[in-house]
């Protein structure tokens, strides 16, 4: 077995797997004559590493892995609550069959996807615009950032309640404005389309600052010399934005979009407080539906199936987004 050494630093370089003869911990595939002292040292180091990371892994296992797997198992079970806890009667696919036969589930899925696409798209556009404006501010940037963070820092239950007061059809200030300024007689939370719109506005108001701050962080890191060269070449502001700023911001925007997809797909507190999922089931997201099935109806198996399927869908959506994003970046690198 060879040991390669970094030419300039003298630090032992990491060996490719083919040169290590497989995983030394397994004790297989090691070529005869390899120094046993080195393997023993690696095993000792591995043990030390596991010892140090074991507490963290135990916590992760307890609070992340276990609930996910537990929920997965419950979703395939006919389960009820007994005096000693959950009682699994049998394993079954009935919970998932109930989902695919439920028109309410299809509606909740469609609504959640639509809501995610619309709000995330709006937040990205507005967030980028806000970040571009803030980047040009000098002394007041700190104040502006602090002001912009107020909606984001507000607890959603509180902000949803405030929006509910403003939308109220009897005494809401927004209703009053629409009546007295525009002569309309709106029932903002009373019809499906306006309730969905009102909910999206409340979400965009709260979350755009989050996107703006992330994009701003990316903006200030962009190298200035590229802009100087472009300016020398005669590029205008619009060209520089489309050809330099936006392409370079893509990784930053991707991070923001990923976070937002995760949050928007699991939206719960806003519809729960603002509309209760109504009118009818117009604003019932998958999370609200899961909550109602699980905690109002105490239908444990079906509730777990909704939670599990939602988790899989959002993971799939994120992976798809990343794949598309990487493919796009790869194309640009080649170009």
């Amino acid at each position: 077995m060879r040991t390669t050494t970094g030419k300039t630093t003298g630090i032992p370089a990491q060996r490719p797997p083919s040169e290590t003869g497989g995983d030394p911990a397994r004790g297989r595939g090691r070529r005869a004559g390899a120094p046993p002292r080195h393997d023993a040292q690696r095993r000792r180091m591995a043990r030390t590493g596991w010892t140090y990371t074991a507490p963290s892994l135990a916590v992760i296992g307890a609070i992340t892995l276990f609930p996910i797997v537990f929920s997965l198992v419950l979703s395939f079970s006919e389960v009820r609550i007994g005096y000693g806890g959950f009682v699994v009667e049998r394993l079954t696919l009935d919970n998932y069959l109930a989902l695919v036969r439920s028109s309410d589930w299809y509606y909740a899925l469609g609504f959640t996807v639509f809501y995610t696409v619309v709000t995330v798209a709006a937040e990205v556009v507005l967030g980028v615009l806000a970040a571009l404006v803030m980047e040009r501010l000098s002394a007041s940037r700190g104040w502006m950032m602090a002001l912009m963070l107020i909606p984001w820092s507000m607890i959603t239950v509180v902000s949803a309640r405030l929006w509910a007061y403003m939308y109220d059809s009897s005494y809401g200030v927004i209703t009053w404005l629409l009546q007295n300024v525009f002569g309309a007689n709106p029932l903002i939370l009373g019809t499906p389309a306006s309730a969905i719109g009102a909910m999206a506005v409340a979400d965009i108001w709260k979350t755009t600052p989050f996107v703006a701050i992330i994009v701003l962080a990316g903006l200030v890191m962009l190298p200035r010399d590229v802009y100087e060269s472009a300016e020398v070449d005669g590029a205008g502001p619009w060209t520089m934005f489309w050809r330099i700023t936006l392409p370079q911001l893509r990784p930053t925007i991707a991070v923001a979009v990923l976070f937002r997809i995760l949050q928007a797909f699991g939206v719960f507190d806003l519809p729960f407080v603002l509309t209760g999922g109504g009118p009818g089931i117009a604003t019932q997201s998958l999370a609200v539906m899961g909550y109602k099935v699980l905690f109002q109806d105490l239908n444990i198996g079906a509730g777990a199936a909704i939670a599990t399927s939602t988790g899989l869908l959002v993971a799939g959506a994120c992976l798809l987004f990343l794949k598309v994003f990487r493919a796009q970046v790869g194309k640009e690198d080649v170009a």
Partner: protein
Amino acid sequence: MHLSRRGLLTGGVVLAATALAGCGGDARPPVTAADIAPPTEPVTIDWMAPELLTNDGKDLRRSMVRTFQERFPEITVRLVQVPPTTDVRRTTLTTQIASGAVTPDVYLGDCAWPAQFAHNSLAMPLGRVADDEEFWSKYPEEVVSSISYQGQVYAFPCYLDLAFLYYRADLLDKHGLQVPATWEELRRTALRLIDTGDVRYGLVWQGMSGEPLTCNVSEFVADAGGALMDPDARRVRADSPEGRHALTFMTELISSGVSPEAVGTFAEEQTLTAFAGGQAAFLRNWSYAWGSANDPASSLVAGKVDAVLRPTFDGAGAARHSTLGGWHNFVNPHTAHPGAAVAFARWVAEEEAQTLMAATSPYLPTLSKVLYNPEIAGRDKPTNRLSADADIVLRPFGSPHYPAISKAVYTGVNRLLVDGADPGAVGDTLTEVARGMALARDGVAL
């Protein structure tokens, strides 16, 4: 040492399977009320109940606990704060008790919970009515029925809630109008009052997608002579001529302008705000609204309000219907102090506590001899005086799937109300509601 992702996942599955195997429930509760007696040693129990305000703004829970501890000095009762809404309380209690928590020992729960909580082992069975007929005969039959499931009682009654029609007595006097005895008369009176410009709305009620809408629907269907389900919550009867009559009238309240279009977004809070703000002539609400509407600090119509039992339909007889509401004390089946918990929950249902409640608070007692004795509560409170004449409507509480049944009712009817309130769509709505209720009854609705 090597731990692959597959290894981690396998570990998780094994852990989950172990947990599932380990939490297999037994067929009977750890203790039953029949096994126990009040303690002789000092014990402390936790009571989870929302703040109950007395007429002078004090906490009724504290005065009840103080009086109880004078009778049972060996039992100390600690008050536990509760989450703000009924739904969140149910969630908290479900997760807590299902995981075997021994506290709270006693909790105040909604009258709609007994069958569901009994079915899911979240409440201790407290014995059969037949085993203690002398005790249970002191309460209205409908109350005892609402807290029973499969022959067992699962809660001790605490307080009732009934629905009343509140009205602007000053406006009726001003325009020489009578208090309406029927819904048709109320519609005419409301339209006249709107025409005078004294009010913006005629009648406000709870049409939002939620449990209060199920209460309103149950009452209107009862007014028309029908019911949503049979008393044993097995046969769905919503899609009936009586159901059609009720829903058609509800939509006409909106289309004729008696009720605002926004009523489909009104929960109790919004209706009370509209009425207390002087915008509405009539309000359907629970007994607590009497105090709120007459509180000068929060109401523009304080002192101008009176209450009657809800009207009925023309030619439907003399019955004045009100949905049964209220809260009762359940005992945690895992409590470490079942004797003390049962002693306390039972004491709250008995005469001393019920009299204290009636004399000092706006809550309606459940004990018949106190409830039907207006001298105790005071004759100036019409809600107590009227309750003896109310015809109680029971929602299908007897089903352990009641929340899903109710959801089928309120989502379907709310959709009808907000979607143009078209009387022509009533038939389809009722068919859809009845189908949803049947699926919910069978436990297969989502």
